[in-house]
């Protein structure tokens, strides 16, 4: 097992390296805003722009820039400075991370708490009224765009502009909040919005996974042993059916932490990693983009590793590969 982890970690590092290189290439290959000009301001002369280009190191060939970047990263954990604000990239990202983490973890708890039980109940009673209702609802939630859902939620429930039941804090409330509880309160609507589509997806996955599992031979054996149906479903059925969900969960959380919650963050104005990378891309702020991508890749790789280890813990057959 240790060798397995070691191999995965090494592969992860290699992947991080490849990610940085790819971002570098994309940034230079496709036309985007010129950071030196942006930095220089609207009436700057070409000479001024060149001077800034030089001070940012942008006039060096790509491979030199890349080499300097990697050197800084590996030796000093220094991700450079934002072209826009001159603030160190690590500071920017670490400042945004808690908001995203809070959003993601809360939403994950919510969607698991809702999606898994709904999936189980639907699987146990296939084609019942409950099952059919669930399937239609989940399809609707998966199809609804997140930002639409967010806007509708605000329109109905935000305490400042809500029309139906104005009880939850609205946009911008996360920044206003000072205490942990106030922040949590401001995230209630975002949690619901972000969790909605996922809960639906997980419910469906759980349902189909459990339906498949329940047709396995060992379920028949469990029943033949005289176990209660509840035990058969939960201990023998769900325990097996849930393992692919664990994989899905790891990937979901990893990508969300990497900035995939950007639409939810935008609609509710939560200052998270997703917003950061969006504005950085618009402003061609390469160091920030690079930094976020690396962080993101790190999270995804880490969570994949965690999930694989969890899988081995859950399924003894996997342990000896």
């Amino acid at each position, binding site marked *: 097992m240790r060798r397995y982890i070691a191999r995965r970690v090494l592969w992860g590092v290699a992947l991080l390296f490849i990610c940085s290189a790819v971002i570098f290439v994309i940034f230079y290959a496709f036309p985007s805003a010129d950071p030196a000009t942006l930095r220089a301001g609207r009436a700057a002369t070409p000479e001024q722009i060149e001077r800034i280009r030089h001070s940012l190191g942008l006039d060096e060939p790509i491979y030199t820039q890349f080499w300097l970047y990697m050197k800084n990263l590996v030796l000093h954990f220094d991700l450079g400075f934002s072209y826009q604000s001159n603030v160190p990239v690590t500071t920017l990202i670490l400042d945004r991370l808690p908001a995203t983490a809070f959003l993601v973890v809360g939403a994950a708890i919510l969607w698991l708490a809702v999606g898994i039980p709904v999936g189980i109940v639907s699987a146990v009673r296939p084609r019942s009224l409950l099952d059919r209702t669930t399937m239609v609802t989940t399809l609707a939630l998966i199809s609804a765009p997140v930002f639409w859902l967010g806007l509708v939620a605000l329109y109905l429930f935000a305490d400042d502009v809500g029309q139906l039941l104005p009880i939850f804090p609205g946009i911008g409330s996360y920044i206003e909040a000072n205490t942990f509880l106030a922040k949590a309160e401001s995230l209630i609507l975002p949690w619901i919005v972000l969790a909605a589509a996922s809960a639906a997806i997980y419910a469906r996955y759980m349902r189909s996974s459990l339906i498949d599992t329940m047709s*396995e*031979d*060992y379920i*028949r*054996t*469990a*029943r*033949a*042993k*005289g*176990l*209660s*149906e509840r035990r058969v479903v939960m201990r*023998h059925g769900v*325990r*097996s059916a849930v393992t692919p969900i664990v994989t899905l969960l790891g990937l979901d959380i990893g990508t969300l932490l990497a900035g995939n919650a950007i639409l939810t963050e935008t609609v509710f104005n939560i200052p998270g990693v997703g917003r950061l990378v969006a504005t950085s891309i618009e402003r061609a702020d390469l160091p920030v983009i690079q930094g976020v991508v690396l962080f993101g890749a790190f999270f995804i790789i880490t969570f994949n590793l965690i999930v694989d280890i969890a899988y081995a813990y*859950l*399924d*003894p*057959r996997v342990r000896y590969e």
Partner: protein
Amino acid sequence: MSLLEVSDLHVHFDTDDGVVQAVDQVSFGIASGETLGIVGESGCGKSVANMTILGLTRGPRTTIAGRVMFEGADLLQMGGEELRQVRGNEIAMIFQDPLSSLHPFFSIGDQITESIRTHRDVSRANARARAIELLGMVGVPEPRRRVDDYPHEFSGGMRQRAMIAMALANDPKLLIADEPTTALDVTTQAQILSLLQDLQDRLGMAVILITHDLGVVAENADRVLVMYAGRIVEDGAIDQIFYDPGHPYTWGLLGSLPSLDLHPHDRLPQIAGLPPSLLAPPQGCHFRERCPHAFDRCLQVPPLEARLPDSPAHRDRCWLSAEQKRELRVADGRIGLRERKSPAS
């Protein structure tokens, strides 16, 4: 004295393609300590009939009729809770593929103790001790160490032994073994069968041995049922079935057994054709379309009856007279099914 008495069992499944008549007019009994073999090819209804005994085929689209009397109660009428007390306790069942029939995530020990603690109020430690004892009883070496192993860590034969151990955990009166050796190689097969025999002698339990292989029942069964297309076509004592078979299908099964008399390059005799679809079975005798001796009476369903006055326990479902049977069942000097010459009328 019958331990279990199945009377006129019918099991129909309502599928999207129509109603599948999986089990039709099945009646048999088994006494304490007896070994009953049930033989037939895939899809003949032998597994479904036996799973129905334990209520494992119940479902919203299943119709079950008939009676299954066990210790004075009709199992088919029992509610789920009552039935669960019988399952794994007084009647146990083991299945064909022990790798897929055991849960891959739990150790053998866990699965056995689960069976024990479902039906008895014992501590975990005691249940575990009993599990080790059971594993030893079925011939698993080093049971103390292996009790914590997972199913995939056992070899095929050991796995089946473990499965048997699990089934025996609560001293069942009846063990239903559904093709317990089909997935095993011949040597291991013999070991398992001998184990079952041995356990049966020691524990005095009845065994229903379901198989498609006549060779398996030859050594081990007291009585044999032959099933075809959902119905019992012949039942009797083991010697009666082997030496005085009364149904053409049985002749065909016997004829297809490999024999030392066959020359190396002879093809094994087979029964021509395929079993009928149970969605729309043929009218009358189900074997009619494959039987070379079918005649017009076969359009009526032959009842399962004793045809010889001095063997009341030997029944078959064929309209042919006893003399005709004795004559027609010999092909090339052995009992077998002759080739069909013309299509059925």
